């Protein structure tokens, strides 16, 4: 049984950053990922990463923008840490080799992003996530002697011992089907988001909420699960993301009358208001009949107002996306977009060092909820979140490990998981197909837990999710083999998605106000008196989710009305 001081689950930006930080302290490190690390979804991040590196900028301004963006649900102690440490982190990345775009003087260039009071987004064309992820992976290759990589290993469960501590994880080597218990002193979950609970989504097929569900099953609480970000510009055609960088570069949003309608909703920031604000504005235009496209469900994004040379240089990836996936030359004509599910602000609850309330378990990145994003994440703050809290959890998990002996981990969980897989493989062909259930789940969530929500819709979503949970128990798979059995992994992922969806719907039902990404048409106002608090969901050892609340940490910034 492999044993390490620190075991990291997930090799996106958060996981790789955690591994490098933990290894730097001298700890032994293993990093596991169900896909090759550079395939992780961080690769898709296009726009950039925020940091107050401009000498005339101030991290406090970044912090304030983040807090306002979060609709005052973000924890201000965590936000302060993130924004204060951001410049040094971005410089660390630059020194590691990230090819950040420069200005004429050879310094790092910055672009404008939504919800920000000045240009503070560093970028690499529009492949920022890819550039960061590949450079971190270069570092993993550099430190291959001190960081053990387990690539294409699928974690099925966390291991919790009798003292209630997390002491490792069970994983399946995808190419052989072999199950293995990984023993560790500290475990860091960095397994990303859960966008696949929604259809369509900007998220990749692998974003199935595995870590969120695994932590939840192991007894760790989830927080802010109702906060689901709809991105204002996703391709109407297939849900692909058009980066906010486009609006940062000056692109306009137009309705069927050709109006730049953001004038009505955010006269100061216009297209660059917070994402929740812009998505709602678009949805309102669509609902009031001013949508565009064949079924009037879209909005025009007009990039032709950006100088063509600049578009080709700084937005090349979306030029390609327009051309390859929508047949549109975005430098010459507007493209049809709509709000689409993009990011989950909630996740496994952690403190500012990444520690969850479950001893030995840490979490960082999209799987975690610190909470720096609160009700709404600002663009280009997520990459920052993954790196800052990835590094911090790596350091703290390693420090914890230095002080202790290797705890015992038995094969009990491995045996359970092997039995679970055997049971899935043995299911008769009478149930529904996994893909069918997944599609129904995604469409349900996208209908009822989207930009606008209400009690009745959320209740139906809850009923459907619970029915799907039952149906998933008999969903059958065709592949009975051991080698690269993606079919059986799909069935396991479906269970994770159902757990995530259930907690999302429950938390959305619970929050009887409108704040950030949660807009309840039956409770259209923000209600600080009753709801300036986090909603936590946990299983507490049982099978059904229970709800509790926790305080929002406020340091210097008192809640105020939010206008852009």
């Amino acid at each position, binding site marked *: 049984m492999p044993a390490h001081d620190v075991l990291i689950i997930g090799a996106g930006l958060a996981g790789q950053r955690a591994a490098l930080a933990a290894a730097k302290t001298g700890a032994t490190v293993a990093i596991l990922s169900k896909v090759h690390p550079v395939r992780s979804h961080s690769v898709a991040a296009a726009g950039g990463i925020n940091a107050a590196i401009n000498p005339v900028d101030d991290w406090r301004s970044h912090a304030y923008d983040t807090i306002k963006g979060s609709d005052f649900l973000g924890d201000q102690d965590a936000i302060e840490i993130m924004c204060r440490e951001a410049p040094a982190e971005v410089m660390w990345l630059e020194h590691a080799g990230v090819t950040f775009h420069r200005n004429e003087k050879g310094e790092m260039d910055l672009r404008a992003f939504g919800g920000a009071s000045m240009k503070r987004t560093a970028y690499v064309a529009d492949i920022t996530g890819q550039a960061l992820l590949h450079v971190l992976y270069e570092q993993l290759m550099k430190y291959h002697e001190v960081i053990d990589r387990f690539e294409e290993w699928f974690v099925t469960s966390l291991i919790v011992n009798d003292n209630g501590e997390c002491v490792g994880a069970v994983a399946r080597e995808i190419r052989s089907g072999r199950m293995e218990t990984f023993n560790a002193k500290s475990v860091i979950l960095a397994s990303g988001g859960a966008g696949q609970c929604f259809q369509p989504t900007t998220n990749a097929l692998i974003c199935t909420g595995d870590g969120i569900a695994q932590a939840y099953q192991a007894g760790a609480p989830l927080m802010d699960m109702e906060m689901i970000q709809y991105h204002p510009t996703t391709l109407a055609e297939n849900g692909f993301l058009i980066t906010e960088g486009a609006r940062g570069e000056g692109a306009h949003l137009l309705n069927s009358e050709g109006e730049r309608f953001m004038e009505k909703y955010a006269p100061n920031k216009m297209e660059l208001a917070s994402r929740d604000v812009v998505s709602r504005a678009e949805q309102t235009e669509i609902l009031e009949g001013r949508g565009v496209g064949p079924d009037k469900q879209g909005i025009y994004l007009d990039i032709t107002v950006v100088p063509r040379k600049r578009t080709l240089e700084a937005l090349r*990836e979306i030029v390609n996306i327009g051309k390859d996936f929508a047949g549109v030359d975005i430098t010459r004509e507007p493209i049809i977009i709509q709000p689409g599910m993009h990011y989950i602000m909630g996740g496994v609850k952690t403190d500012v060092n990444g520690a969850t309330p479950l001893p030995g378990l840490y979490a960082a990145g999209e799987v975690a909820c610190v909470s720096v994003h609160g009700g709404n994440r600002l663009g280009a703050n997520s990459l920052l979140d993954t790196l800052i809290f990835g590094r911090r959890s790596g350091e703290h998990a390693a420090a914890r490990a230095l002080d202790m002996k290797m705890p015992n981990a038995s094969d009990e969980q491995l045996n359970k998981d092997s039995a679970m897989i055997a049971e899935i493989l043995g299911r008769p062909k009478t149930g529904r197909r996994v893909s069918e259930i997944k599609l129904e789940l995604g469409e349900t969530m996208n209908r009822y837990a989207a930009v606008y929500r209400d009690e009745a819709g959320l209740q139906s979503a809850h009923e459907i999710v619970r029915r799907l949970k039952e149906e998933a128990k008999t969903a059958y798979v065709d592949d009975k083999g051991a080698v690269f059995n993606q079919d059986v992994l799909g069935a396991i992922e479906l269970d994770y998605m159902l757990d995530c969806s259930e907690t999302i719907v429950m938390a959305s039902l619970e929050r009887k106000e409108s704040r950030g990404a949660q807009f309840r048409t039956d409770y259209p106002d923000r209600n600080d008196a009753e709801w300036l608090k986090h909603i936590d969901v946990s299983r507490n050892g049982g099978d059904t989710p229970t709800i509790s609340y926790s305080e929002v940490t406020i340091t210097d910034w008192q809640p105020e009305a939010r206008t852009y």
Partner: protein
Amino acid sequence: MAEFKLKIRRYDPQSGAAPYWDEHTVELEPHRSVLEGILQARNEKDGSIGVRCSCRAAICGSCGVRVNGKPGLACHTHLDDALASAGEDGVIEVEPMGNMPIIKDLIVDMDAVHWKKIQRVTPWLIGKEPVPEREYIVSRESMIDVTQSMACIQCGACVSDCLSMEVDPLFIGPAALAKTYRFVGDPRDAAHEQRLKDLGEDKHGIYDCTHCFKCIEACPKGVAPMNQIMRLRRIAGNDFHIKDRNNGERHEMAFVKNIEKNGILHEADLLPDSYGGKFHPRAVPELISSLPIVMTALLRRKMTPAKALLHPHRAPDGVKKIYEIVEGRDERNEFNLYISGTDADNEPNPEVAAAAEVAEPAAVAPDGSEGSSA
């Protein structure tokens, strides 16, 4: 909606049986991708079809396959395009990539080949000392320039059909060498010379590529690995006097000198100037993309390689002027391919535009007749 027939190459290592073809009919809009076709078959009919995929948007690099014998990304190949290149039976063939062992169905062992080669090229920045407190100050162009090789998503499509690798499996290959340019082109890296020496002396290194263009054709991200390899060779030869094992540098200089002398390419001169055997007209696009930017500006104005090859001229003054400008520069300007593929509207550099203006009348053969009479 339209119907498409997909023939997927299947292989189950546990069955003991040989690989076989498995046909499925899918219904999708024609501009949807081959990957969506495969996933429809997998979701609706047979969940055991093995294919790596994640982003569906040509960014994660998971879904490298061969479609009708050509390597590429399944998610980046439209069904209608695939149909157009299919055989007479109108069936789209999807197979695993080549040059790598097959694990199952469309899934190949990238670790055994691709990633091993990447690890071979010391794939991390060796930063110049002292490390600055803030960012390294480097030119804007240099960072945009390496972004082209940074755009590589490690999909392996170029490795799949690399001709040299078929002959010499130890060849370090297009992707890993493109990755090398990412460091050699990066002014922050302190080890340009060591890197080039290392890969120049390795007989499976930068001089082992045979200019077959397959990697350029295969690459879905415009990385153009062969061009990066040629740039590595150029820097190795010009800046570090590393000896070319295969005479490639002389071959390239022959192109440059030939044009300086004739105004456009004169094949008859080129062959003796260079050396026989390896020259092929297809090498012309390489010339176009590897010469300094002013040359391309000139060539792009209407001149086709075929005309250039068939109709030699004496070098007009404009061309000479361009050579003077370029050779008079302190710094060599590498043609930045990352942007240049689509920069039709970029304002031209006035100095260069003026020179190209002078060059144009003589260099362009409007209908070919002028050329033959010259």
